[in-house]
Each structure stands twice: as structure tokens, then as C-alpha cells.
């Protein structure tokens, strides 16, 4: 059975009307329709009956054994850590007794001190960045580099003493420098 649109609209609003949740204008329109429509009037009666019956449905009483089982469960359980910590914190209200204040302060300071010292005493050593072979190789390079600097210095001194720098002198110097330089792969080529 398909209702005409007007009846459908009324059917949708009947519960709101029964509860007094419609605006005065909407309620008036609905009442106008109900006055001439038997079917909607029957639906309104039914909506009122249901609302009335729902209000009178009796509350049920929980059986005692259900409650007892729950309370026994709680009695057999320890309070959760959060609950115990919360209860302890709530207990620490001002004013505290002087002895308790001193004791609490001492405990707090000791904890702070431990937290500060522990990272220093337990500082982890950094792992070695280079292998032993790499370190030995670096030492050798440094020795060669110092030898190169020493040789170059001696040659420079010699040139300065002679004051007359010519190609004949410079050429062997360059050659010597190259041969002393361990990184120059060209070797004796000139």
C-alpha cells in the first residue's frame, strides 16, 4: 500500500508530535490533516499507545548472585598499579608533616641525583672509527710527507745560497721533488 505524499510526511512526524517536539506551525498542519484522515488518526493513536506503553515497561531487578560474583571478583583482585599510584599521589596533599616532607624531599633529591650521575658514569665509549691498518698507513704517509718537506727545504736553501737560479739547477730539483713525492705516479717522466 502506497500512501499519498501528505500522509507519508505526517507518518514521519507523528512521534515528534507526540513528544511535543514540532513547531506550533508544523503541529497545526499535522492536526489539520489528522482531522480529515482516518488512517493517520489511527496511526497517531498507535504512536500514543506505544509511547505510553514504553514508559510503563518495568525496570528489572538484578539477581543477587550476579552482584555477589562481581564483588567477589573485585575482592580477589589487587588494585591496578595506576590506581595505587593515583591513591598514593592523592595522599600527598599539603600540608605534610615536617618529617614526611623531609623524607619525601630527600627521596626526590636522591632520585634526581641518580638520574643526573648515571649518564656520566655509564657513558659508553665511542666505537673506533678506523682500523689498525688504516692508522699505520696514515703514520707512514705522514713520515714520507715530513721527509719531502725536509728535502724541499734543503734544496731551497741551496738555491738561495747560490743566488743564481738557472734551468740547469731547477730541473734536477723538480726531478728530485717528484721522486720524493709518493703520490706522484708520473715518477721520473719530465
Amino acid at each position, binding site marked *: 500500500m502506497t500512501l499519498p505524499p501528505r500522509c507519508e510526511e505526517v507518518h514521519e512526524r507523528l512521534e515528534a508530535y507526540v513528544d511535543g517536539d514540532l513547531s506550533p506551525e508544523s503541529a497545526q498542519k499535522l492536526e489539520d490533516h489528522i482531522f480529515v484522515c482516518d488512517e493517520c488518526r489511527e496511526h497517531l493513536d*498507535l*504512536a500514543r499507545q*506505544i509511547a505510553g506503553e514504553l514508559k510503563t*515497561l518495568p525496570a*528489572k531487578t538484578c539477581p543477587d548472585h*550476579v552482584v555477589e560474583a562481581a564483588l567477589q571478583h573485585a575482592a580477589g583482585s589487587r*588494585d591496578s598499579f595506576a590506581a595505587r599510584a593515583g*591513591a598514593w599521589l592523592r595522599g600527598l596533599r599539603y600540608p605534610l608533616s615536617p618529617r614526611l616532607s623531609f623524607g619525601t624531599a630527600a627521596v626526590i633529591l636522591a632520585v634526581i641525583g641518580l638520574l643526573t650521575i648515571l649518564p656520566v658514569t655509564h657513558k659508553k665509549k665511542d666505537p673506533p672509527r678506523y682500523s689498525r691498518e688504516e692508522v699505520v698507513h696514515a703514520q707512514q704517509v705522514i713520515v714520507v710527507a715530513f721527509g719531502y718537506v725536509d728535502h724541499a727545504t734543503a734544496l731551497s736553501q741551496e738555491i738561495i745560497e747560490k743566488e743564481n737560479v738557472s734551468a740547469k739547477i731547477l730541473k734536477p730539483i723538480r726531478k728530485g721533488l717528484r721522486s720524493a713525492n709518493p703520490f706522484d705516479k708520473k715518477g721520473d717522466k719530465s
Partner: protein
Amino acid sequence: MQKNRFETIVHQYKDSIYSYAYYFSGSPENAEDLTQGVLLKIWQGLDRLRMEPARSWVMKITRNHCIDWFRSQRPKDRASVPLAEQDHPSEPGVYSAERDVQRMELRETILRAISRLPEKLRSLIILREIEDMKYEEISHALDMPLNSVKASIHRGRRLLREHLSSLYEREYQGR
């Protein structure tokens, strides 16, 4: 301390929880199991109680537990949820015998129809009509907008009405 709070809550709300579970599940046995489950959850979550009103909190737990239970049921068990009213004595002397019988029939039909409502609408109807909670209280407890609460409760009652109306129509045609 926790135990004292728990005991207070249990004694204050045990009947509300049981009633809700009874009307939601449709059987005293299921209602007992559900009430046990709800009380256990209340005990486990007692630390969170300070954040909201106790009644809203308790009924929210009850509602969620019942909906979880309903969803865990197999579809065939859901369809056969019984809702027999064995302990509703009629009010003596108020109605004639015939009216009394009619009213009992109507009540039983409504109860059966409630147990077949979609679970969310069923929850709202029970909270509003049986637990007698205010719209605002339900809105707060279930974290739903007030208008949605009202509209859903009206929709639930409308479904009940349409169900009853179709039953009456069938009955009338059968005569």
C-alpha cells in the same frame, strides 16, 4: 579505596544495567551474562570514571558491551532472540479483564518488536524509555548530537509503530 567505589557503583546501577541487558537481549540468562561482563569492565576501567558523570559512563559501557555481544551472535541466533514476558503481573483493579489482556498483548508485541529493532535504535529506545535518561544525558553518554538522538529515537518508535500496524492489518485480514 577502589573496591569501595566499585561497590558503590554496583549497588547504584546494577538494576539499570540488568534492565538494559534484559530488554536488549530479550532473555534473563543473557541479561545475567551481559551484566557480569559490564560489571567486570566497570571494575577494569574504574580509573577513568572521574572524567565523566557516573551514570553516563556506566550506561555507555553497558550499551557498548551489549552491542558487541549482539554482533558476536550468529545471525540465526539473533533472529531467534526470545522475549517472553513471564513476570509482568497485571495491575489489579485498574482495567477490565479484557482490556488487561489486550494491554498485555500489546506490551508483549512491543517487547518482541524492540528486540528486532536495529541494535543502535534499540539501545537508544531502551536508554530513553526504560532507563528514563534525558536526551541530553544520552547525547553526552554516546557522544551523539542531540538532534540525532531525538531523530533516532523517533525513528525507532516509528519502526515499532509500523511493525505493530502491519501485524494488526494481517490479523484483520486473517479474520
